[in-house]
């Protein structure tokens, strides 16, 4: 006797079978660790002895919110997010637009060169610029010749307020190409007759850009912003290689702050509390972005 199932339950079965493996992986690699971290953040945890003593209450969270280093790390992380969303994306978009509208020649060369840093490992990029900016580095030597001062060093690294500036520069250098390629791909999907029609109607370049192109690509911009923000909050390798969060904690971002306490000071319980706060902030920011998108663009995505 043949075994038959209804079309509806066959669909449900297929759906379940497709979803189950990635769901399982998600729970294993992301869901369980987050829940475990949440649990550990309320304990006193000695990782070397693997002993978690429940009952720490909110003490780690209180310690964190009272700690000036935490707020400074958060400030730096928002600076990184800001550079990504308000630096890499606009510049990437403008470059993509310039290439798409054929404002320059040798487009292939420029596209390749702008994208090239994206392909380099973040640690290598960090070390590269560390060496370039260091007192014995190439850029310092060049500046010494230009300024005619043999003892000149790039002092901005030692300035608490402005130490994130060089890091912002390196981030722009590395990641703008990534967003440029995304926008270029989306621009190439656009129907060229729309731009032709606008030009026939007498629109200037600026008007074409603002009134035609931008609204069509709004969805891509929002998605890129989410990617940029998520990446910023995860960001560790580049800044670690460049400054280790130093000097002192001037360039420390939230992930380095967490790393310092968890891995260098062996305070894994405190580290777990920090990681939960990072997750919470990321969720809030993504929700915020979705809200803004709905208000500006509608539900087209």
């Amino acid at each position, binding site marked *: 006797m043949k075994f038959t199932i209804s079309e509806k339950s066959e669909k449900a079965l297929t759906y379940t079978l497709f979803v189950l493996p990635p769901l399982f992986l998600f729970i294993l690699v992301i869901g369980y660790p987050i829940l475990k971290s949440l649990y550990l953040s309320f304990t006193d945890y000695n990782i070397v002895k693997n002993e978690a003593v429940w009952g720490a209450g909110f003490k780690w969270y209180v310690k964190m919110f009272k700690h000036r280093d935490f707020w400074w790390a958060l400030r730096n992380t928002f600076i990184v997010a800001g550079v990504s969303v308000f630096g890499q994306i606009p510049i990437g978009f403008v470059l993509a637009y310039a290439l798409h509208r054929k404002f320059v020649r040798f487009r292939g060369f420029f596209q390749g060169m702008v994208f090239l840093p994206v392909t380099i490992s973040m640690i290598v990029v960090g070390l590269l610029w560390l060496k370039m*900016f*260091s007192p*014995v580095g190439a850029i310092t030597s060049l500046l010494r010749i230009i300024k005619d001062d043999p003892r000149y060093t790039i002092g901005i*690294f030692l300035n608490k307020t402005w130490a994130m500036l060089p890091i912002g520069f390196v981030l722009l250098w590395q990641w703008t190409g990534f967003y440029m390629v995304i926008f270029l791909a989306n621009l190439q999907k656009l129907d060229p007759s729309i731009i032709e029609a606008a030009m026939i109607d007498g629109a200037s370049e600026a008007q074409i850009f603002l009134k035609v192109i931008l609204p069509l690509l709004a969805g891509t911009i929002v998605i890129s912003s989410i990617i940029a923000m998520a990446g910023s909050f995860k960001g560790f390798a580049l800044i670690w290689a460049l400054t280790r969060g130093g*000097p*002192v904690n001037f360039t420390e971002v939230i992930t380095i702050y967490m790393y310092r306490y968890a891995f260098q000071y062996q305070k894994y319980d405190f580290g777990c509390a920090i990681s939960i706060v990072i997750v919470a902030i990321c969720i809030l920011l993504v929700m915020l972005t979705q809200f803004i998108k709905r208000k500006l663009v509608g539900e087209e995505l």
Partner: protein
Amino acid sequence: MGKIKESSQIKKEEEQKMKRSMFYVLTLVAAFSLVFASCAGAVTLNFLLYADASMPAGRVEQDVVAAFEAAYPDIELKIETLYDEAFHEKLAALAAAGALPDVMTLWPGGKRSGYLYEAGLIEDLYPYLGAEKANFVPGAVASQYEGKLMELPMGAGCATQVLFVNTELLDQLGMAMPQTFEEFKAMAPGINAAGLIPLIMPNKESWVMQCSLFSTIVGRIAGTEWLMDAIAGVNSFTDSEFVRSLEIVQEFYATGLIPVSSIQLAYGDSPPLFTEGEGVFMIDGDWRVGDFTATGGLMYDAPEEQAKIKLTVVPDFADQVGPSSSTALVATTGLGMKAGLSPEKAEAAFKLVRFYAGPEAARIRVAAGGGMAGIAPSYKYLDLSGIELSPLTVEIIGFYAKHPGTPVLDAVIVGDPIERINNGLQELGLGQITPEQLAAEVEAAFAR
């Protein structure tokens, strides 16, 4: 007819089946015997070595390990060589994961390896060392943690503050070796005006200032007894002795002796600056000498250049109570082994631990002009015949007799307080904090 054929065919098939299964069984037996043959007698050890493989001194350590492998062919080493923070982070991660290597470079205690000892992860070496303890310098085999020996130091002791002096530059500038701190400070404007760095120090890593200069200052201004009392809580770090020590660090920066830009100078970038004549003085640990003298080192093939460098300590301070011309001394690093190894592995591991600190290794290091732990070996009975010592090696060997030692802070202070001191010294140099504020924060970090 068909039936007979069938039965002979069946027989053939059966024979073939038998042959095939025999073949499989034989293959299995051969495979197993190969596996067991390679197992018998060969022990494999996971070894995490601390060495800067890009510098001559680090390569000397790798030579020592290669000599061990040649001497003990039946011990297979799976070696990973790391340096500085990368090593400490990896070891911490391995400890947290419960995957410690069988043998690893360890510190005598303190911030670097203390957490491993507290968790009981490292084997006590005294039972393995036994009577051979008498062959090592007493200071090196003194107990390190709760009466146990956690690592067998490769050196007799390690001086973290050595002042390298470029006497040729001093002569060119028409200056003399300073005898007091006041004289030292007075030299700064002249040297800066000549476009040179008075005192080169790679302060990007926060431990360097604390380990290589501040420890000496505290040892001289406050004295060892005060320090140990302060750690025990009998004194306070807000006492004037500690505040004065911090003020002296401030004076080093303020007078231009140490440029503030040194906080951007990465560890390892200072020796080339010094050998290229960019600075008159340099402070680093005694382990740095090996990078000048070892094969392939900065001054390996230039004994005349080496002869122009003198090794001493920073001049005395006017208000010091501690010993004159002191440096900061700590037991050196060495190899230790994971607790709970099987008897064969433990035996093999201790062979490596002992070889690394033993006479053959010491000879390799001295002949090469220095390894990662400076020059004075911990093994007492050495055959140094036929080794020609370079001028700087002779200098550093004579160094220890001339300069008494006070404790290195990160060997006796662990946890939050030492982190506050390390970072605070950088903040002090950048003018972000006052000595009094920092002293108060250090005392608070002890959370008594």
